[in-house]
């Protein structure tokens, strides 16, 4: 069956260009990625070969759209523990390669004013890049977390959406009937990063096997809904409402179990992914002032879940065989998130993008790692050279509260309309529990070859 899926996917990829017609559009991309770790003691990643095929069929008012992705994922620890080919909506830890996944697969019906879509969809709400405050409908795939773009890390969710346009006004409504969980890497994979169980991983023969969570019952009451009202004008603005499970990962604790067995030490780390409903009311806006393109976003979250600092989780300082109950680690607080972003054209084909966003945790009682006020600063300098045959990007992110940050330098060369190649160097710094500092051992250089058609 697995071979059949691969054969079908291969057929679509190779035969698709000849199938394209007036109302049928097919395109795709193959991506070969290799990375070299700059830290000698970090977990390695194998080369990846991934492909995507997008099919659009638009006869009359109906539209069919499919985005199939698949291939060999180098971030998965070999041999893969999970041998299923299709990505699942039931599991958080999915260590499967090769894999196939529908990022999008929906049918739509469009009239001049109304569009209804049903199927697997990804949404992009809000205005900010990287961490948009009101973009909550899709959970993220964290398996290569900061090495994937925001849109690439979004997992498509089964949903029903309606968009109604009247002049400058647009109204959106989305219903996601079942919870699709976020995805996390396994502890022995490169992008798991530093965590409370890092000392356990250093035990000789340690094999850490995290437990899958029991997902909340998939009832109508547990479904997610989102509403948005947009207005286009001198200032484009939108009012957003989301009610559903928080797409950001948090955990609950059980008990740490260290069990030596036949030369191995099997470890249940004692924490499992947890899911909590939140309600978010938000506002976003964008406008142009002189040479500046400005955007902003704001969101008030009711009951956002957090975890306390990892040193309070109750892990033993000297790991030994046995069972160790852990402390409750969950807290809840309302939060206020806001941010502003700006694009400024320095010269032709050179744009500086800046963004600052802050989170105020209303009830920070001291046990959280996050401070009452958390700040994230981003800057990106994108420059095109030789009529955009060469593109360079310098990206810097910094959190002043914890002093963690990320620097990324990328160069991309366009050989032809179909072939591109690029290289990226990425560096992380900061304390182990911080957003970027978790990956401070993951500095790396990447080479990428892209073929698209």
């Amino acid at each position, binding site marked *: 069956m697995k071979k059949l899926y691969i054969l079908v996917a291969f057929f679509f990829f190779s035969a698709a260009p000849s199938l394209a017609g007036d109302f049928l559009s097919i395109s795709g*991309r193959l991506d070969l990625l290799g990375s070299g770790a700059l830290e000698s003691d970090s977990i390695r990643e194998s080369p990846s070969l991934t492909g995507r095929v997008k099919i659009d069929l638009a006869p009359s008012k109906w539209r069919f759209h499919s985005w199939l992705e698949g291939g060999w994922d180098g971030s998965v620890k070999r041999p893969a523990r999970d041998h299923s080919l299709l990505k699942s909506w039931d599991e958080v830890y999915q260590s499967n390669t090769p894999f196939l996944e529908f990022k999008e697969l929906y049918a739509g019906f469009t009239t001049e004013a109304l569009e209804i879509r049903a199927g697997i969809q990804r949404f992009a709400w809000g205005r900010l*890049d990287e961490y948009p405050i009101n973009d909550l409908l899709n959970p993220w795939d964290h398996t290569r977390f900061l090495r994937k773009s925001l849109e690439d890390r979004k997992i498509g969710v089964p949903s029903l959406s309606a968009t109604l*346009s009247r002049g400058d006004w*647009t109204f959106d409504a989305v219903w996601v009937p079942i919870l699709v969980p976020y995805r996390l890497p396994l502890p022995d994979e490169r992008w798991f990063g530093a965590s409370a169980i890092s000392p356990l991983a250093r035990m000789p023969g340690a094999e850490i096997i995290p437990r899958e969570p029991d997902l909340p019952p998939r009832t109508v009451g547990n479904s997610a809904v989102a509403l948005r009202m947009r207005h286009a004008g001198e200032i*484009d603005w939108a009012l957003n409402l989301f009610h559903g499970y928080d797409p950001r990962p948090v955990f609950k604790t059980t008990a740490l179990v260290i069990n030596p067995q036949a030369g191995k030490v099997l470890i249940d780390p004692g924490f499992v992914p947890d899911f909590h409903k939140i309600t978010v009311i938000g506002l976003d806006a964008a406008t142009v002032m*002189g040479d500046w*393109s400005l955007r902003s976003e704001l969101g008030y979250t009711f009951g956002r879940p957090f975890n306390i600092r990892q040193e309070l989780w109750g892990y033993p300082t000297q790991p030994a065989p046995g069972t160790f109950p852990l402390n409750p680690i969950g807290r809840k607080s309302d939060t206020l998130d806001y941010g502003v972003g700006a694009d400024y054209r320095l010269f*032709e084909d050179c744009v500086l993008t800046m963004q600052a966003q802050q989170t105020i945790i209303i009830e920070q009682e001291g046990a959280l790692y996050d401070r009452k006020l958390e700040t994230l600063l981003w800057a990106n300098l994108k420059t095109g050279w030789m*009529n*955009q045959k060469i593109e360079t990007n310098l990206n810097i992110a910094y959190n002043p509260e914890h002093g963690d940050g990320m620097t990324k330098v990328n160069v991309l060369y366009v050989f032809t309309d179909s072939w591109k190649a690029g290289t990226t160097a990425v560096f992380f710094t900061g304390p182990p529990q911080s957003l970027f500092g978790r990956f401070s051992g993951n500095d790396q250089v990447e080479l990428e070859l892209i073929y698209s058609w």
Partner: protein
Amino acid sequence: MNRKQLLTRQESRLNLPAAISTPPPPRQEGGRFFNVASLCKIVWKASVLFLTVILSAVTGHAMSGREVYEKVHEVRSKMLDRKTEVTMVLFDKGGGKRSRTLSEYCKRSVPEGYKVLVLFRSPPDLKDVGFLIHARTFAERDLWVYFPEYKRVRRIPTTSQDDSFFGSDFSYDDFGGPPNLDDYRFSIIKEEVLDGRPCYKVEVTPKVRRKYTRYIAWVAKELWVQLKIDYYQDKELYRTGAFKDIKVVDTIPTPFSLNVENRKTGHRTELTIESIRYHTNFTDELFTQRSLERSGR
């Protein structure tokens, strides 16, 4: 103001003697045929006519540069309701080439504005990238760009209007409607024959800061389309445009082949109109951000 009124206003601007030959005002109460204000007006118009005749005699041109461009503006305004399928080929100095295909939708909107939606159909990495213009007047525009990779519409400042349009030698401004004539100064340099067509060679100088300091255009008499444009940065020629294969479609003269070259880099872009349809009368729904996100579908 409706289209008919607009055209009437433009026609009256184009035809100065006609303005002077308007019938005299009706006799005022009290028996005076001329009041002082209307007398001054007539004296002023006569002076303008006299000066125009004298200047024409000196320069030898029947029209001023501004009048030539009012004609060009009129033709370009007629082009505003259209759908165009375009192929754009980018040539490197070294001989490498890249191709893009685009669909362009335009709509005239009241009173003097227009809307434009440009959508890339190929190459694959630009497919469904879109560019939307809402021009409230010929001088005031809002611009948005959509990249499917980010799934987000971005507003872009109009100061980017002279930047390269997605790596080509065309600018964003080249995909807009006719410019606001009040933002330029025009002067006819001479009359010249180009590609077998008699032309006015006109120097056009922007009043506001642009990437170019001036351009010299060859405008075909009778057709009122530009056949060639040389763009200068001070005294240095930096960009040239040649517009060929002119066909009349629905009474509108249309260049089907446009070749723009950057003289500094040697990079060149050939744009070919594969098909064009005028008087399309698209609905406003085609020119929304939602339509931009959905690639016009």
